[in-house]
């Protein structure tokens, strides 16, 4: 058992600037130049990107090249200003200085991308659109894209919530009651491992609407890992906890609700994380086949019209949404399981 320690651990300094700030000394001029060096280069990289947009003629017909160049110059200016004035920007300045190597890499990558596609077509053009084409999708096709985003979010939320709730209740029942386990366990073993996408044809002729069919599939994909892990969590609760609660006068309902379930929560969250991952895959496939709006449908549509920039734009949005959903799950876990620093890192 560790001795009582402060609830917030002290973060170790990650760089020269943080180290100096940590020690409370102001940076001397040569050190600050060294530390700001990456910032200067990052700014230069973004300025290069802006220049690369303007220096040569576009090989295709894109309307946002100029706007992109201006944005790149603004970003370059922002980086150099933040680098020079880092001391006054406090935590934001420190955070930015941590990220300058990434900003540098990003600037170089974008320059290379711009040159390879729009200017010299080293990559075959329709399949590899330049940055300005993707920006054009966001500025011109925003209503349709947003529509699809909201449709996907609604579908995903509904299916995931139903699947997680059903999986959790099933898992607790199997873990707690032997008779429930007797009946449900074989069903779980036989039907659970079947990938939800294999149910696609069945779902679409059984359910009245494509929306309900897709919700069913997502719930199925979520439910299986949540059930298995909830069950494992409940079954692995140490008997000592039950002994303690029983000698203190706990009834069976208290044992389930206030002992078994809280003790099983770490496992439950692993199950929720796995369920989230598999539900994304089913969401995209289900949308490609059935629905009238949604990111999967948008991808399919873009591919059908050979509008590859739309496809990439949708992929970027999808990645942000999925990443955001996982982050939300882990934030919730960190809040609820404040007593246990997570074993699964995100």
């Amino acid at each position, binding site marked *: 058992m560790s001795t009582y320690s402060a609830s917030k651990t002290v973060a170790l300094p990650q760089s020269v600037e943080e180290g100096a700030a940590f020690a409370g000394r102001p940076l001397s001029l040569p050190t600050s130049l060294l530390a700001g060096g990456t910032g200067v280069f990052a700014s230069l990289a973004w300025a290069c990107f802006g220049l690369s947009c303007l220096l040569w003629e576009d090989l295709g017909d894109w309307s946002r090249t100029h706007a992109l160049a201006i944005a790149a110059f603004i970003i370059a200016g922002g980086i150099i200003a933040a680098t020079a004035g880092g001391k006054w920007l406090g935590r934001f300045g420190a955070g930015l200085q941590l990220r300058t190597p990434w900003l540098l890499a990003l600037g170089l990558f974008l320059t290379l991308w711009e040159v390879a596609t729009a200017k010299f077509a080293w990559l075959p053009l329709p399949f590899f659109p330049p940055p300005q084409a993707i920006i054009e999708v966001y500025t011109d096709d925003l209503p349709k894209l947003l529509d699809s985003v909201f449709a996907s979010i609604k579908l995903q939320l509904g299916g995931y919530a139903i699947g997680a709730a059903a999986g959790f209740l099933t898992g607790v029942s199997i873990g707690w009651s032997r008779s429930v386990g007797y009946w449900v366990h074989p069903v779980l073993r036989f039907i659970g491992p079947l990938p939800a996408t294999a149910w696609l044809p069945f779902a679409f002729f059984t359910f009245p609407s494509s929306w309900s069919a897709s919700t069913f599939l997502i719930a199925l994909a979520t439910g299986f890992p949540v059930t298995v892990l909830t069950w494992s969590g409940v079954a692995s609760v140490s008997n000592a906890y039950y002994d303690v609660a029983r000698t203190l006068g706990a009834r069976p309902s208290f044992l389930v609700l*206030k*002992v078994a379930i809280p003790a099983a929560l770490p496992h439950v969250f692993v199950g929720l994380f796995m369920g989230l991952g598999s539900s994304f895959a089913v969401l995209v496939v289900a949308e490609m086949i059935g629905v009238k709006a949604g990111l999967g449908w948008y991808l399919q549509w873009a591919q059908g019209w050979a509008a590859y920039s739309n496809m990439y734009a949708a992929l970027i949005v999808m990645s942000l949404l999925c990443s955001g959903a996982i982050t939300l799950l882990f934030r919730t876990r960190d809040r609820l399981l404040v007593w246990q620093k997570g074993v699964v890192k995100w």
Partner: protein
Amino acid sequence: MDIEAVSHAFDIDGVILPVLDDISFSVKPGEFVALLGPSGCGKSTLLRLVAGLEPPRSGNLREDGNPIAGPFPSRVVVFQDPTLFPWRTVWDNVALGLEAQGILKSQRHRVDAAIDLVGLSTFRNAYPHQLSGGMAQRVALARALVNDPRILILDEPLGKLDSLTRITMQAEIASLWQRSGFTTLLVTHDVEEAVFLANRVIVFSDRPARIKADIAVDRPYPRHRGDPILAELRRNILGLLGLDETW
């Protein structure tokens, strides 16, 4: 509390392992009884039977004339491992018994009193992983005492602590018992602890456990560790256990 002709055995892979052999003794209200014996002799099993966590294979256990049929908060146990619920703060852990019985709302002051009693008021909102071993065991003690039990059962509660903490905790347990006057059953393998705390020491044999001796310790409280009468008692008990060569 009466224990009559209790015998118990474990069934391990088809092999019956007898642990308790015809144990009988009575405990008067307010007594501090130490159950002393070598490791693995079955003392903890006897405690589990008294607590009501398991029924005995033969024999009867009675509390105030009523047979013990299951666990009940009048017979509270402090285990060797504090077994605090890691998802609850110290305050919530101590409140566990009252919450399980559904009377927490009207009795919140008892939780605060119990935490003050063990001297952990500044840690009421800490989580178990932030506590040291001694502090965790004190929280377990508070968790037991908040229920105002008639019988306090201690299953080698200080076994996992270092000897300095053990000395402090022994003094605390003794003063708590003196103040509240509940009946206490202490299982221990430490002869000095048994003789220092209890006013009656029951010595068990090796497995299957039989009662070897039932010794009254008549010294007044608060006791002194250097008391020669206690030292003599220790020597006698060690002799009973066959361990007095190095005296």
